[in-house]
């Protein structure tokens, strides 16, 4: 699957492509407006990550151009300006999502996966790993084809870990994801620990292998050898 990263900051572009590459995405980086316009014009991408403040043009114009050409690529706007106006403008122009800087790479991974899932029309709405299966439409979890009763937060957590599988996800990223992007709500990560503990208990109780590992207290990892 192909992703176009339109980002003028070289290091940030590399961060994103490096992280997404591990998910078997093919990433191309367009560091300026002209390249971005040329690439988005010439090729189809599954997802375009669009930084709207580029040195030689406004990224929103690329978005307008793509929409004018009836392109169906998924588009996530990445912006340093986290203002409601920008968000509304971007989404009104047809972007699929809006991710304010700075963001966690795992959050980016989850958003990209969500866009790609949504774009697979009529396709498979399930993500499965061995005996574990998540239906992203019904928001249900099955282990060996049997439903597991988990809470909404536990579902979010499991999906987040699964999408970023085999990668360490920091506690900060998990906390931010679960609280819906709200910052500064937590003095400690006890609540993550509680959620993880409950989730592990429910999954193993249903006969699922214990995939979720704590990594040296840095964060958690959905560990599955393929």
């Amino acid at each position, binding site marked *: 699957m192909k992703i176009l990263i339109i980002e003028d900051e070289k290091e940030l572009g590399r961060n994103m492509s490096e992280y997404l590459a591990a998910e078997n995405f093919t990433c191309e980086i367009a560091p300026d407006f002209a390249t971005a316009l040329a690439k988005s014009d010439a090729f189809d991408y599954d997802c375009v990550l669009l930084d709207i403040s580029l040195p030689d043009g406004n990224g929103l114009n690329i978005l307008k151009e793509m929409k004018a050409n009836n392109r169906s690529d998924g588009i996530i706007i990445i912006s340093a300006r986290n203002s409601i106006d920008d968000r509304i403008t971007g989404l009104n122009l047809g972007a699929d999502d809006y991710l304010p800087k700075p963001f966690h790479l795992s959050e980016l991974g989850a958003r990209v996966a969500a866009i790609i899932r949504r774009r697979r029309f009529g396709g498979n709405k399930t993500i499965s790993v061995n005996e574990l299966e998540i239906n992203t439409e019904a928001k249900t979890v099955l282990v060996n084809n049997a439903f597991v009763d988990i809470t909404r937060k536990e579902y979010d957590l499991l999906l987040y870990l699964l999408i970023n599988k085999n990668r360490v996800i920091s506690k900060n990223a998990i906390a931010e994801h679960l609280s819906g992007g709200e910052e500064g*709500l937590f003095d400690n990560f006890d609540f993550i620990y509680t959620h993880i503990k409950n989730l592990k208990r429910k999954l193993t109780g249903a006969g699922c292998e214990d995939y979720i590992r704590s990594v040296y207290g840095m964060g958690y990892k959905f560990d599955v050898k393929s």
Partner: protein
Amino acid sequence: MKLLNRSIQSYIIYSVIIILVAVPVFYFVIQAIVHEEIDEGLVAQKEELLQRLQKLPDSMFRNESMVQALGLTPAAQPAEKNRFLNTTTFDNISGEHIPYRVIEFGMVLGGKPFSYQLKRSMVDNEDLIQSIVAVMVVLMILMVAGFLIINRVISRKIWKPFYSTVHTLNEYDLEKNETPFLEKTNIAEFSNLNKTISALIKRNNAVFQSQKEFTENAAHEMQTPLAILQGKIELLMQTEPLNTDQARLISDLANASQRMNRLNSSLLLLTKIENNQFIERENISVDETVDKMITQYAWMAEQKNLLFEKHALQKLSIDANRPLLEILISNLITNAIRHTPDSGTLVTEATASGELIIKIQRSMVRSIIPGYLNVLKKKVQTAAVPVLG
């Protein structure tokens, strides 16, 4: 007090004093002049009378009935000087007391001293004085009134550009980034004032604009390196092999960078508030906002097994900026959740006096975090710091 009234007030006080002083003074001066005139006439009359009396034969003055008929009064001493008197006599015809000016003088006739009184009615003169004074008073009042009216009209005209400038400034909104049009005026002071104001506004706009740009730049300049840093830390987490020490260091780095992110976004929010970039006001129901926030943070409360209780004595609503009010209330609620001990109860209360109170209840002890709405109101309106701690 208006400037216009202020200057007129002094004029009015001055005019009243002048009228009160001038009218009696004028009356007495006119009266004195008239008396002098009458006295002069009386003296002339006296001289004429003396001349005629001296032509009479001396024998006449020895005859007492003759003396009485002439109106002469025998005197003990021959008076040297003229004496002037004011008397009144009752007049039977008009039924009034009529004032007279009287001259009393002495003379020696036929070797005998006599005194004599000459009278002159002052009725006509008194009337004249009164008429003159009345006309004078009317004239003065007319003059003062006219003066005041003219002054008022002229002042109104003169101050018009000033009031128009004030009105324009009242309507002026820095956010809109437009230079208000100040009316042209011929009066040097006002045109000077308008020039100064225009220059000030231009400078203000420029400063505001650059401040806004600074905010945006700060956002962009800071957020990007922070995003890079955070990304690198996350990538570092993925490297293998890692040992416990390295993992701990990476963890600390991640926490520090997270804190930096939070600080940066708080700073940006504060700058935005200080730049008054939250201008849109709408009438917001505080109850609904509180309910919405409570729903949003219900999961946090669940974590600590907290109960929410709501006592709404009345509907609260204020004019505020929605995003700011939401930030404020969500900060209050998350702080309250954070500080409530496990299995406690959080009470939100809207009091009759229009305050919003968020209380924390433990089993027995009651501690209160009051978020007074009037304080909140002020904070939201002056767009000051949202309550953070």
